[in-house]
């Protein structure tokens, strides 16, 4: 019972700090470009502003459009329960389920983009499904490699004493590439631009405003932090506690892991250009091959 409460607490903390990760990344990116940039709390202000605004819904849209923000948020929060962040031993943490839960949210988001009848939405929807369907095999293969070393697809088996192998690291790199795409980062997508010919995720949510947009934004922040925590837990399983012990060190350790990942993502975003849509196939092929190498190495026991 205590464990269940702890896990719920973990998801609440995770959701609460999730916009911060995006704020930190934006800040670092701006600093790297010798700009001051907005405060790291800017995502919170944005959400607060969006909640206060009136919503405009397209006349063409149906109930799918209204329901989507709720489904996206619900599936993302449910997915957040699957990843051990500071507390290990939650029995619900199946990695394959995690992949499918995110595809539930994506499915609805893609439908809602088509719902308004705008060509931007259609473009975004088509591209998102295109990219995600190529990301999926790479993700599954990487998860397989990680799980082969772990002995189960359930991430809750991981604890702070778990020794990582080289194949796990390679698989994590492959997974990280998928995560860059899934969190609509450069080189696949660009969160900063609203240029209709290049955007993917932003094109899908173009018609959303007010509260609905806020919910979708929150969902993408949570999705991002869930993925970051996943990588953090896989690569550095230290700082996982089994209960209410070492609270402060565990939490600080987790934040440090998160910060390192944020810096890494910022460096990638600043130093790379967005790829042409069809180059994404090469990107995922590379990720797939990395995951395959990881599988072969895991099979050889490295």
């Amino acid at each position, binding site marked *: 019972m205590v464990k269940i409460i702890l896990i719920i607490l973990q998801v609440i903390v995770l959701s609460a700090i999730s916009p911060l990760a995006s704020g930190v990344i934006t800040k670092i990116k701006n600093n790297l470009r010798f700009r001051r940039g907005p405060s790291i709390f800017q995502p919170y202000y944005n959400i607060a502003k969006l909640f206060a605004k009136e*919503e405009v*819904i397209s006349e*063409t849209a149906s109930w799918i459009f209204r329901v989507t923000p709720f489904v996206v948020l619900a599936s993302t929060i449910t997915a957040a329960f699957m990843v051990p962040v500071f507390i290990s031993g939650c029995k619900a943490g199946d990695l394959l389920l995690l992949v499918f839960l995110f595809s539930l949210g994506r499915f609805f988001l893609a439908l809602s983009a*088509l719902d308004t009848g705008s060509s931007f939405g259609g473009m975004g929807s088509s591209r998102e499904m295109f990219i995600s369907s190529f990301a*999926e095999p790479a993700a599954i293969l990487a998860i397989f490699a990680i799980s082969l070393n772990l002995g189960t697809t359930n991430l809750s088996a991981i604890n702070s004493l778990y020794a990582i192998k080289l194949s796990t690291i390679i698989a994590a790199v492959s997974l990280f590439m998928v995560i860059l795409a899934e969190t609509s980062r450069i080189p696949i997508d660009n969160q900063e631009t609203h240029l209709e010919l290049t955007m993917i995720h932003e094109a899908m949510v173009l018609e959303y405003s007010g509260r609905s947009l806020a919910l979708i934004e929150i969902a993408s922040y949570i999705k991002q932090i869930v993925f970051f925590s996943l990588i953090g837990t896989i690569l550095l399983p230290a700082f996982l506690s089994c209960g209410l012990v070492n609270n402060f060190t565990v939490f600080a350790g987790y934040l440090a892991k998160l910060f390192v990942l944020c810096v890494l993502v910022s460096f990638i975003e600043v130093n790379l250009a967005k790829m042409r849509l*069809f180059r994404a196939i090469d990107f995922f092929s590379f990720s797939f091959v990395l995951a395959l190498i990881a599988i072969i190495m895991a099979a050889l026991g490295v």
Partner: protein
Amino acid sequence: MTNIFNLHLGFLYDGLSLFFLATILLISIPSGIYSLGYLKGHFSKGKILYNWFLFILFIVSMLLVVTVNNALVFLICWELMSLVSYFLVVFDEKSEKSQSAGTTYVVMTHIGTAFITLAFLILYKHAGSFDFGVLKAASGTLSPAAKTLVFVFLLIGFGTKAGIVPLHIWLPQAHPQAPSHVSSLMSGVMIKTAIYGIIRFIIFILGVGYLWWGNLILVLAAVSCVVGVIYALMEHDLKKLLAYHSVENIGIILLGLGASMVFLKINLPVLAVFSLAAGLYHLINHAIFKGLLFLCAGSVYKATGTRDIEKLGGLIKKMPYTSAAFLIGAMAISALPPLNGFVSEWLTLQAFFQGALASTSGIKVFLSLCAAALALTSGLAAACFVKAFGVTFLAQPRSNKAKEACEVSFSMKLSMCILSTLTFVFGLFSAIIFKNLLLISKSALGLKALNVNFSPNNLTLIAGNNTAVSLPLVAFMLIAFVAAVVLIFIFAGKLKAKKYNTWDCGYYKLNSRNEYSATAFSKPFRIAFSFFLLPYKKTEKIRESFYHVKTFKYETFTTPVFGKYIYAPLLGIILSLARFMRRLQPGSIHLYISYIFVTIIALIIFMKAF
């Protein structure tokens, strides 16, 4: 020769037969209810009676196929099923398409039957009986070469019916041409009788001979699912799209089956039971959601008179029930939790994972690659159904036909409702259902005594490497979070929203011509898979002046690779051979009499000599 006719007519009531029996009835009943509304107004009274006659005969023949215990009777029922379904395919005899589709179907299915007959004859020659029990007992002593031959013949024979790539060619032609309630039976159930055949004759009677049998089935299955879904993505005919998804899903079912055969050979009986059960689970799930989707497609056709999704759109407002049912079916087939499609794909992936964990290095990599193929398939399937649902039901109507659509009659809604409910039931109560499937799978593999650890509350796997998914819990969480956020909004008191046009870049009001079409949606996929699809496009500009293009025509097609490079040359060879053989028949009676004379002489010599 005598005991061919001395049939021991009897029925099988083992788990496998009962499972298929239940699957057939589960889909047949809603389809029957559906046809009440669907046929009305479409066909004359006599035609409807004729349809009912064929429909019931079709169901009875399928029920017989999965229950008889004699190979010869099995063949007769199999043939009856094929022929009746042929008459159902050409039921709408006015259309040219259904005739040619029917011809392709009847030719392909008979090639399949010929191979099955050959396999049975080899078995009969060895065992001296057509009875399943005798065949099973005798197949143990079959020589390895004969065993392999029987396996290959059975695989080709049943593979044709199941629609394994490259034998799938008839499926996307024939299934859409039949009336929709029949399509739902053909795609949902009839092709599954081929899976029954594979399990019954290859796994149960023949026994898995070599490791490569399983590997071959896995490779064929992986190719089928990826090729099926790629073709489905390119398709804009709603029913044809669904038919290609049948190719894909047969592939997923066979992934479970093939994995089971591999595990049997590498001595992992628990996993063999597990993955066969996963395959069977996907089989019944596919029957449910594909049945549902075909019924929805039929409703769309009935309401609008077209199956071309480029001419549809906006139906969600006109046909709320049909669109909700289609959405549920689409979610299920895209393997989204907590619906049934997710459960079986998760189980299949888990089967691969557990197998990879337990096996040695080469098979580890192979099984992981199969899992990757499955993941690619499920990603592409989700894309395809975003396209199918989005273009058909969302945004604005693209033609007058779609504008004037209205909701279908009660009986049609009822049957769609039954099947939609079943997708939820088979998702949420998966643990109980899977437990029973494990028992069936044990009896099919002849491993009744085996103890498979399984917890009934959630889908927990084999002890030791346990991972669990509790679908009721996931569903509960999803609903709880949706409800929580909605409640917060209601108490915050501001659920009002302004309605306005879709953003039109400050231009003029958008109409349906501005919408993204299905062709546009699938364009990235067409480019990504261009090495296989070989697309070609034709553009045509008519200019008023150098600067002003008056009209612009854009056409794009993909090359049907299998039809063009395998079947067309094959057909050419057969036809030229036939033309060559025609020289034997110049029409002269004298020549024919001399043929008869020569034949008799030859026969006499033959009888004397041997």
